[in-house]
């Protein structure tokens, strides 16, 4: 793959020159390695699996040390990730190891969203690296790489097949991280069941299109061993931190009434194979795959999502300046648009409020008018009444005066009248 890089460059017009003596640049790999050693390496492992499958114990066994941490309970409300960083030193090589463990995976009743926190975590690490890479002032060579290099997926030793939760989770994770499936607590399965189980698992993975990590077979020195190991996936492991005396050596083992399972015995479990593959042969390849495949994929998707393109619709490559200028103008345009919108909204609100107030004012006026009219009506009525009363009073007075007059006349005339009447009466007799 990369040896052809040089060949390609040769084809581009360089010729190979013979050297007349020892120049000394064959120490170049050593120089490179020394630099890396002084900087230290970092490696990030994620363990995904149900509670109680022995994730922490396996990590302790793998790295020959007791990492701190308490076992999780089964009562977690959701899946969480617990991450710890350790500094390990062996001969003169320093390794910054980060172990991320899922807590509460598979414990809920509804497991539909179990994979989400894991995917979010992986994306967050990629995002952090992408942000650092896009900064103007960046320090990539001292940046602590937190991207997960390998995900050990712990499969419960049922002996039948994969659980649907496992399939779904692995399917979601296979494009974001290198997955190595492991059968945990494999001392619960007998040898014959184990082979059947492994075959079932691999066929299920293949039929569901889950891409697990394949050990690279392109380098001759490791091709053979990697090839055979690929056939042994998933590894059936047993972890133990207890040491027991077997024969005359102290070994890590688990003691049962019927016998002892030795962790480092290849006939008992695949732990040695896992350690070999993970640490001693392919650690560098895992890191490279994470960077060149998974991270690049994430970066590509993220940048495309943000609207970057490598070529414009006429498939002419954008120059850097053009792209950034275009982006910047777009951004400014958007800002302006937003500002306009906000201003419009403001004006609208003001108008509305004004209209409301006007309405209220009109109403008040109307009310006032109405009241006034009412008042006037009342007043008029009262005046009419008063007038009529006055009229009546006047009429009464008139009548009274007329009546009095009549009375006074009448009493005179009445007297005469009565006389007259009397006379008339008398005349009749």
């Amino acid at each position, binding site marked *: 793959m*990369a040896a052809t*890089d040089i060949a390609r460059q040769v084809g581009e017009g*360089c010729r190979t020159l013979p050297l007349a003596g020892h120049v000394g640049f064959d120490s170049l790999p050593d120089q490179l390695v020394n630099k890396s050693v002084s900087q230290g390496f970092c490696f990030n492992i994620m363990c995904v699996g149900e509670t109680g499958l022995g994730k922490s114990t396996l990590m302790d066994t793998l790295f020959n040390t007791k990492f701190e941490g308490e076992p999780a309970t089964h009562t977690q409300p959701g899946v969480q990730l617990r991450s710890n960083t350790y500094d390990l030193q062996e001969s003169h090589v320093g390794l910054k190891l980060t172990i991320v463990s899922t807590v509460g995976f598979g414990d809920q009743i509804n497991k539909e969203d179990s994979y989400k926190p894991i995917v979010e*975590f992986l994306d967050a690490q990629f995002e952090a690296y992408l942000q650092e890479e896009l900064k103007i002032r960046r320090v990539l060579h001292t940046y602590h790489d937190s991207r997960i290099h390998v995900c050990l997926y712990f499969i419960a030793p049922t002996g039948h097949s994969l659980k649907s939760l496992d399939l779904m989770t692995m399917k979601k994770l296979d494009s974001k991280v290198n997955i190595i499936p492991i059968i945990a607590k494999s001392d619960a399965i007998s040898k014959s069941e184990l082979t059947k189980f492994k075959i079932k698992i691999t066929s299920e993975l293949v039929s569901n299109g889950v891409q697990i990590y394949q050990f690279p077979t392109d380098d001759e020195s490791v091709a053979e061993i990697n090839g055979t190991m690929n056939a042994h996936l998933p590894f059936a492991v047993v972890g133990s931190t207890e040491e027991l005396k077997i024969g005359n050596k102290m070994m890590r083992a688990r003691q049962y009434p019927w016998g002892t399972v030795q962790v480092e015995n290849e006939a008992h479990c695949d732990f040695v194979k896992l350690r070999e593959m993970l640490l001693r042969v392919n650690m560098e390849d895992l890191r490279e795959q994470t960077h060149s495949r998974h991270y690049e994929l994430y970066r590509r998707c993220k940048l495309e999502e943000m609207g970057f393109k490598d070529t414009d619709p006429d498939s002419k490559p954008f120059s850097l300046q053009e792209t950034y200028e275009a982006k910047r103008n777009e951004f400014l345009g958007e800002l302006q648009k937003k500002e306009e919108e906000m201003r419009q909204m403001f004006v609208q609100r003001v108008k509305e409020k004004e209209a409301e107030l006007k309405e209220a004012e009109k109403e008040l006026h109307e009310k006032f008018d109405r009241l006034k009219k009412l008042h006037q009506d009342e007043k008029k009525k009262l005046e009419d009444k008063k007038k009529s009363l006055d009229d009546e009073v006047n009429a009464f007075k008139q009548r009274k005066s007329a009546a009095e007059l009549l009375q006074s006349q009448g009493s005179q005339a009445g007297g005469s009248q009565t006389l007259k009447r009397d006379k008339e009466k008398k005349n009749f007799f």
Partner: protein
Amino acid sequence: MSKGLPETRTDAAMSELVPEPRPKPAVPMKPVSINTNLLGYIGIDTIIEQMRKKTMKTGFDFNIMVVGQSGLGKSTLVNTLFKSQVSRKASSWNREEKIPKTVEIKAIGHVIEEGGVKMKLTVIDTPGFGDQINNENCWEPIEKYINEQYEKFLKEEVNIARKKRIPDTRVHCCLYFISPTGHSLRPLDLEFMKHLSKVVNIIPVIAKADTMTLEEKSEFKQRVRKELEVHGIEFYPQKEFDEDLEDKTENDKIRESMPFAVVGSDKEYQVNGKRVLGRKTPWGIIEVENLHHCEFALLRDFVIRTHLQDLKEVTHNIHYETYRAKRLNDNGGLPPVSVDTEGSHDSNP
């Protein structure tokens, strides 16, 4: 252009603060790392082997530029360094061949292999430098070329679909040839080095050092070093990039003996029964690789055997990053996803 470059490199120390990733992950990372004792062999140190195998497969690029007036022995020296005919000497000078009117840049690439390590070596020659009557701004084409290489790399890096291994054409090392006048540096030398020491690693060498006696050599060197210091010119290995005490002491020793006074030759002669590269004169044979005669061996060991990788790294981590920062700043900054600008995420569709 400010002299202070972004940051001095710090070691990935034992308990350094892990930067907070954004956006916040489900669980924040613990900032302090714990030292653990190991109870048995794990195999972590095999990563060295793995890394070495990987780098041997990918191969290396190295680009070296030689600058100096014509006739100072640039091509010969490069051929001697890499023990092969990487440069063609402009040995025959016809009257018809004009001196180039401006500084030309000629880059020739070769692939050399040694001990299973393949290296693509590119020698960039600059004929015409300092050869005109009026040499004003003759470093500009060179500066332009160096910046063009940075630009090319930046473009590749910013692509969405990136190549697995970006071809590296950036100039890793610039050998500047000083004329052995014995007095001091010429104004042209000072101007060139002042302008270019900030964009590329400059290693000054005193050319044709067989014209000076030992005392003249050491005096000249001291004067040159002093002049460079007075003018604030930092040649490689730069003091500000010394990582730790070990580096500092080692580099101090080297800095004390720079600029190296070299003699180049591609002819072999018989001396004391051995075949050595040398120059034959009536008064003796000057052996190129003899430390008593000249400092070629020091230069070769320095550039190739111990600091080759460091040259590349300083170019990549410091000079390239400076160029990139300046370039992106001039362009109005990065698109809104960067954390240095307003940090607004509202360009998400």
